[in-house]
């Protein structure tokens, strides 16, 4: 696939006009969020006790170049400020990669913007953007539906559609369609976290139970009124999946004490990227 020109948008405002405005350098645009947390020093033990880490907020810097003569550059500068400086809300930063994939994040400009005048014709400025949520996500909604098999060992759900992600999948929506009694979804991804989420109740035929990791919502459909107390999980989300090494697919295992034909699992969400 031929590479295309990389493009950047702040909400719907394109920063890479390529004519009178563009992102100049790629330096600073691919910065991953730093890990948060620290290892623990234990007396009389060598080194530190390792602890799993989480990522902090992400940052990236855009080197923007504006204008061809001063009056237009001033107008472009005003437009740019109006587009990216939104202290009361988060701006959607969208990037179309050279491979043509659209990714976006929610970011804010917290620092001062200091343009450098290039003669009287143009401005040059670097925009430091902080991504409080840490991660970028793909623009395309991925939906994986797998019917539950009768195999007593459980049904493996292949989530390879998500596996090109480079960051943890924390905002997937899991929908269990009945009839399932005490279903459990376990992360059996090779080198994964091994977490699980279970519902200690019955999702009857025609009913659905949706666990939305993004909103922590527990919703039922088809007449199911879920009891939040029946949802049990091992991790700090209902079920979050770590990013996989190259070539390894995400996999879930569905088990239940009773599975009737028609039961299925649907996983919905977006790919997640460090940057």
């Amino acid at each position: 696939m031929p590479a295309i020109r990389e493009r950047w948008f702040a909400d719907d405002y394109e920063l890479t006009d390529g004519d009178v405005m563009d992102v100049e350098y790629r330096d600073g645009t691919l910065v991953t969020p730093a890990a948060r947390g620290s290892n623990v020093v234990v007396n009389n033990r060598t080194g530190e006790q390792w602890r799993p880490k989480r990522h902090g907020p992400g940052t990236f810097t855009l080197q923007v170049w504006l204008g061809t003569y001063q009056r237009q550059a001033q107008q472009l500068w005003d437009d740019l400020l109006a587009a990216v400086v939104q202290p009361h809300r988060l701006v959607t930063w969208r990037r179309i990669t050279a491979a043509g994939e659209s990714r976006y994040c929610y970011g804010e400009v917290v620092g001062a913007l200091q343009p450098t005048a290039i003669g009287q014709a143009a401005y040059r400025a670097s925009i430091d953007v902080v991504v409080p949520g840490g991660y970028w996500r793909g623009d395309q909604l991925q939906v994986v539906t797998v019917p539950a098999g009768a195999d007593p060992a459980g049904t493996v759900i292949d989530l390879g559609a998500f596996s090109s992600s480079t960051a943890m999948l924390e905002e997937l929506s899991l929908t269990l369609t009945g009839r399932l009694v005490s279903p459990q979804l376990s992360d059996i991804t090779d080198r994964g976290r091994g977490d699980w989420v279970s519902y200690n109740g019955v999702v009857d035929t025609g009913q659905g139970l949706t666990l939305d990791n993004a909103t922590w919502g527990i919703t039922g459909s088809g007449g199911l009124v879920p009891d939040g107390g029946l949802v049990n999980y091992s991790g700090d989300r209902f079920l979050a999946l770590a990013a996989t090494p190259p070539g390894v697919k995400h996999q879930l295992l569905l088990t239940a004490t009773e599975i009737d034909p028609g039961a299925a699992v649907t996983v919905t969400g977006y790919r997640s990227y460090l940057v």
Partner: protein
Amino acid sequence: MAATDLLYALSAAGAGMGGAPSYWTNAGGAIREPNGLFAVNTWKNVKRGATHQQLTLTGYDPQAAILAATGGVIPYSLDFLHVQVTFTLTDASNFSSVDVLLLDADGNQLATAPLYLLDTAAGITTLGWVNYIGHNGLDDGQPLTWDDLAGCQIVLDVDWSPAAQIGATFAVDAVGMFVSYTVDPPTTPLQPPTAVPVQAPGGGVTLRVYDRDDNRLGTLPWSKLSTTIVRNDLAALSAEVPKGLIATGLLDGERYLRVAVNGRETDDWFVLDDDGDDDANEYGAMRPVAIAGTGVGSILDWGVVYSWQYDPTKGTLLGLDPNNGFAGKTPGFVLRTLIDAAKARGCFPQLTYSFTDDVDSAGRAWPTIYSKTYDIGTSLLKVLTDAATDGWVDWEMTGFRLDCYVPDTTLALDRPDVILRLGKGVTQAPRKRTRKSTRTALLANGDQGATVEVDDPTAAVTYGRREGYEGRSGVTDVGTLTAATTVSLARQTDAHEALTLEIDPYAMPEEAPALPRPGGYIRYDQRRLSPTELEPMRVQSVAIDYGDAGKVSVELNDLWVDADIKRARQLDAILNGSTANDRVPQPQDAPDSLAPGPVLGLGLESTAYVAPDGTLGAQMTASWVQVTQNADGSTIDDLAGYELQWRQLDVMSGINTISINAITLYEWSPVVPGVQIDVRIRAIDRWGNGSTWSDWTSIMAGADVTPPPVPTAPVVDNYLGLYRAVWDGAFVGGLARPPDLHHVEVHLSQIDGFTPDARPIEDGGTLAGSVFAAGPVFRDTPYGQTWYAKLVAVDTVGNRSDPSDQSSGASGQVVEADVFDGAIGSSKLADLAVITAKIDDLAVNNAKIGSMEVGKLLAGTFTAQIIMGGTISTSADPTTSGGVQINGLGIYAWNSSGVQTVAIDTAGNATLTGTYRTAASGQRVEIGVAGATRQLVFYSPNGQQQYLRSETWQNQANSTVEALSIRAGTQALILATSDNTASMWGWSLGFIYRDDFSVWSAPSVLGDTANQRERVTINSNGEWTLWPGGGGTMHFLAQDVSTSSPRIQFVNPSGFGAVIKAVYANSVARIEVRDVNDQGFSNVYAAAFTVNSDLGAKTDVRAVDEADAAAMLTAVLDTKVHRYRRIRYDGSDAAEEIGLVAQRAPKQIVVGASNPDPGVDLYQMNTMLWGAVQTLGRRLAAIETRGGKKK
């Protein structure tokens, strides 16, 4: 009072209102919509030229009307106000509109709404109404409250445009007012939520300052603000406000603070306690002023208990307060009395309360009465907080209103839907469990040498022996001391735990505003009782930081605290005495007498306890009202004490009498628990005069009403083929075994989620057995059948706990090491060990029989898959005596004469004699019906018979005819060997047959019954011959092969006739009539011979001209007429004829000139003659004309 009553009253007042408006509904249930009606007859003359006037309505009291409707219960909440007005206008020409204003008692406007007018013509009674004042809040956004209705005023604001006419009047006939309110507290969460600012676009949090009279003085622009609301305790507020932004005097004097979130004030008001700043602060005029406030309930701290009555207007003492101390009073009475006394002295005039002596703020009757004396100087806040700590009440302040509730009712709101999830928004969750105060043995000392020691062996296993000491002065009875110490120890046998959750309200936009007020229950996803149940966690306090980085801290306690509070209440009951049902009436007036007055208000309480020696006893507490009067009502001054008598007639005879000093509370023990005890009391003066005995008052001894804790769910399994339900001896929440636990019932049912029924299973209940300690109950249930098990703990007086969680299981087969199924193999069983006596009758059957060789076998019903035998016979020799036999050759039967009737051999030959029927009767087929052999009879549904019959008979020639006849009624179809079926009659079809080797034989249809002749024959060439009567025949001959012409031959009995044939030759079709042999032609005779000459059947029609006609004359003249004789093919001579010869005739009239048999067309020939005659005619006329000319 119902809504309809009001409407009726309104109508009677002259409003002319026809029934309720259509939008009016009476929801019933908890929501009621009745109340105030007031009628006015105020004629209001409008001022000349007035543009608007206000008319204040009077004569109503909505609070009184509601109380009358509810029986004195103050509504839980008010929804809206509905006002109806009827009025009359004398001149409506400049009348504009009417607004309804709702004013408070001070004349401040609460709300306004325009009156909706039905009609405004002059001289008629007009109805106007306004709905839903306050439904969406009053003008200030606050809901309509009970206090708003106190002294509220309704003002009609009448507008005229441009101005009223001279002499116009506006006369109000009647006004009805309706308030929608809710009496009962809602079962669904309607408790005002804890105010948490979450995602409040356009809103904000403001700090408002009020004075004592509820006047809003201003707003404090805060930089820091936080509040803490605590269960049954004072709330707290702290804030920082820049000094330069505080208006002058705003914080001077008595001030109250309220927090408004998004313009809506929270129910928690605060008293401004402290404000202060630091002049040295470098921020100068804008330096922060620290402000601290406590919940508005702290105004109760400004009043104290006086033990005597004091008249502040005179500065004199009026004597001892007869209510001090309180004996057998409800918490409502105690608090109300003390508050009212303080208010009478001028304390906290702004304070109101919503409970009464009899019911709490939700209208719920106080269940318990208490006896208590307060020290002089005790603040009323302390009285209130002690009442809460002791479990008398739950309380909270709503504005200046004190609401008190029966504990664990209104304020114990369970919100199972509020689940705080760790990863979602919990930022901190510090937990602390302390074992410091844990004790496992208590030594208690009362007065007069009463000393007991109580220990808890179960707790000692965990914590070892930890001793504690409790001094209980005033308790002289060992039983009371034991009971109190036991309960007190139960509070100390486990670790105490507290958990505080700090949450980010912005991460929990749904949960944070839904947090119940302190006292309610929520869930925390890190605390579970089981995989299917989250632990209810009680909210002890909610602290809210309203800053930019707002956060909410929720202090939670678990089940342990609830149990602890219940024990505290139990302890209080033991030491103070209480009864659930007794009310203490006031002393009565009576005439003077020397004997003391009767003792009133005897209340009893009894608690079971386990004595140090392990025996179960019951302790008694009696309380009564001090006798203050003699029997005649005069003040008693010689009371010596009381005599108390008690009896337990069920277990002992006689009456026990106890002499008591002049006190009002007495405890004694032991009495027999679980048995009714009767107690009465009288007063004795120092001279020995006794009052009349009080009535016997009875309770169940040891009748504590505290049920045991809930046992843990049973463990169910299969044990030696029996269903086993085991209690592990523990209780939910790790609570200790109560000392008065008697047993734990094990309930079983096949119904999932069943409710335990204390009757035995055999009697329709669910009780399967009981255990007295950890242990099992067994039941023989069918293998594999699922039974559900629950436990119910029962104490010695029969208090039953709630059922435990359910377990389920099923019994199954036993597989044990000794003799399990299949354990004894055939090698272990001695040969010939199974004798006949060891085999049950009929036990050996089916698969247990492989092959059997016996000399003789007698059996009843013999069922087998395969029976192999040489001969199976119904008798030894059926060939002589009759019977059935199956042998190697086939199946045979013989009649009683030994004649074989059935023979079916293995070659497939079958002989069945007798009659064969397809059914016993009705529609059927029978073969060989008796008396009519050789026939097959078909019985139709109506009983008619049809036959298929083989017959022989003699024909006229006396030869035998063999025939097969099919007969249906009188008709028959006969297939016979001869055409002469002499004895048969009717229409018959004879000897039609065909075999495989011959062509069709000639069939004929016999039609002539008299002569037995055929009427139709068909020969093998397919030629038909018909005899239509007589000797003549018609033959449908085979076709003329040369011309493929079909032919019909008519022949008379003499052999003369003709042949009619259809010929097609040279593209012309024609009918030919030939002689009888189809050789020459035959004659055709007819009355007329007509040729079709229709113009419509012709084309190219044109009249011939004279030349053409002349040519016809020439042709006629040129054609010779011939004489000849026709050739006859039978050889006979024919007569001479005249005529034309086709070959010599004009071509115009010749037909088939090229055929073998050309002819002459008579029609054309005559027409040619016609043309010739016309020519002749013209020529004759011409001759005549010329001759005339010549003349």
